[in-house]
């Protein structure tokens, strides 16, 4: 969707946005389930194991088995827990993850075929809501999602949960600065907060990708993104070896499942942002633009699993030290140099 084409495109109606929202919900939550399967398989192969094999061909139906298990499991609210907050916390995590996806272009736009009754001819945009502050909105929503683990850990009357919540606060305060500062330099270059403008800035082939202009920002954003999605070098919130299951210790059934749908949706969101902001995004003019962005997103998703298999995680104090004393000064220097180059 190039800005020059916007005039020729059909009107975005409320029905189209609703269809888009339902599509995102359905496909991303299915992909989140599939992501757990892929994660288990990739981790297994990297450790010379087979992974899930027995439910369906190559264990593909393991997602269905897990889903049935999660839905039918007993839903326990611990005795001394604050029941209201305990119940609302997983909803915060899942909901904010999906709200963040509203401002991210996920699939190519299309028109519903005419032969479908009631909705035929409705134009479905690639982006549910093309906000002019897209980047800010997505980062804000993902930051708000951290209230899920924070409240969950404090509400469940469990010491491991409290530790998980404390680590959530620590991690949140540390990396959020780096996320914002690292993505500020590309924003200064593009001069817009809209993902569509980012995409259109990099349409002139691989050479025009933001990663060549802002390699430091790219690395910083990846590190902060790993922290934002609680992936392995920074999975302090629920590290089994230290805090049992952290903020999710007392959760069971679908409430527990919602934390993980939220986490995997966040992984997809971070992958999409990295692909659009730094790796050129989708090329709306070419036929296979949608395929290239899918490949880029898949690469970032795979990178998260890859890193989980390869690297040990850091201690909370190391995380804070890294974020405040190393990454933040580098991000600030990067912004300063970018600004000087832009002015000069």
């Amino acid at each position, binding site marked *: 969707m190039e800005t020059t084409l916007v005039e020729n495109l059909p009107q975005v109606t409320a029905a189209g946005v609703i269809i888009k929202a339902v599509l995102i919900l359905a496909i991303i939550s299915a992909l989140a389930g599939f992501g757990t399967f892929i994660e288990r398989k990739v981790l297994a*192969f*990297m*450790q*010379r194991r087979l992974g899930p*094999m027995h439910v369906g061909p190559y264990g593909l139906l393991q997602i269905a088995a897990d889903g049935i298990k999660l839905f039918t499991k007993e839903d326990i609210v611990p005795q001394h827990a604050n029941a209201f907050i305990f119940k609302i916390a997983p909803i915060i995590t899942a909901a904010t993850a999906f709200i963040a996806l509203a401002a991210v272009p996920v699939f190519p736009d299309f028109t519903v075929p005419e032969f479908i009754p009631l909705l035929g001819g409705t134009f479905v945009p690639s982006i549910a809501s093309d906000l002019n502050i897209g980047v800010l909105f997505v980062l804000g929503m993902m930051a708000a999602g951290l209230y899920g683990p924070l409240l969950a850990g404090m509400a469940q009357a469990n010491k491991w949960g409290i530790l998980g919540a404390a680590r959530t606060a620590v991690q949140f305060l540390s990396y959020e600065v780096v996320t914002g500062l690292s993505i500020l330099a590309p924003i200064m270059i593009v001069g817009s907060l809209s993902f569509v403008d980012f995409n259109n800035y990099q349409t002139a082939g691989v050479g025009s990708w933001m990663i060549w202009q802002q390699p430091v920002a790219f690395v910083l954003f990846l590190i902060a993104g790993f922290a934002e999605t609680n992936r392995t070098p920074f999975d302090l919130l629920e590290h089994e070896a230290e805090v049992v299951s952290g903020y999710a210790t007392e959760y069971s059934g679908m409430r527990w499942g919602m934390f993980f749908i939220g986490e995997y949706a966040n992984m997809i969101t971070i992958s999409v942002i990295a692909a659009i902001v730094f790796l050129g995004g989708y090329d709306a003019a070419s036929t296979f633009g949608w395929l290239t962005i899918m490949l880029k997103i898949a690469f970032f998703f795979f990178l998260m699993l890859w*890193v989980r298999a*390869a690297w040990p995680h850091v201690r909370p104090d190391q995380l804070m030290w890294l974020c405040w004393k190393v990454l933040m000064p580098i991000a600030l220097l990067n912004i300063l140099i970018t600004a000087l180059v832009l002015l000069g």
Partner: protein
Amino acid sequence: MSLEQFKNRNVGTQNYTTLDVGTPPETGTDKFLQVIRRAVKGELFVGLWVVMRTMLQALFKNDMHTVKYPFEKLPISPRYRAIHDMLILLESGNYRCIGCGLCEKICISNCISMDTRYDENQRKEVSEYTINFGRCIFCGYCAEVCPELAIVHGPRYENASEQRAGFSLFEDMLTPIDKLNLQQEYDGFGAISPNADENIKQTPLAY
């Protein structure tokens, strides 16, 4: 190396060679430089490559370590002490057991009980023979003491059951006469596993 050097347990008095690991950084600048050195050194990417190489080998060279256990089993060592088997003579099909009673005598948990009688040829034969597997500790003395290699430890190690005590009769352990060609001889105390060659690997020290 003499025995005294092994017996010396006072740590620090031996002739150890210490690895040169350097000194931990003292000042903030040194710590920062150490982080930079480690970040630029590429160790992290070596780690990424190691797991990627393992994945490629697992996928394309079939270097997979999973054994789908109930469907496939690893060969066990011939010295493994599982449920007992009673072997019979390959030539005549007669019992190897001569009813000497040594296994009953040596059994330290008193789980073997046997009764013998003279048959019509005035040869000793076993009339009653049971092993109480609720008591058996699978020490292997019965198989060791048997002068005829009649009682041996077979390959059946999946002996979980719903009851605590289980008794095995002579006929249960005896090789069926129609499966005589499948009877496995005991390979001896020095025998190694059939897959011993596959289990020999280089120590994975260097990546």
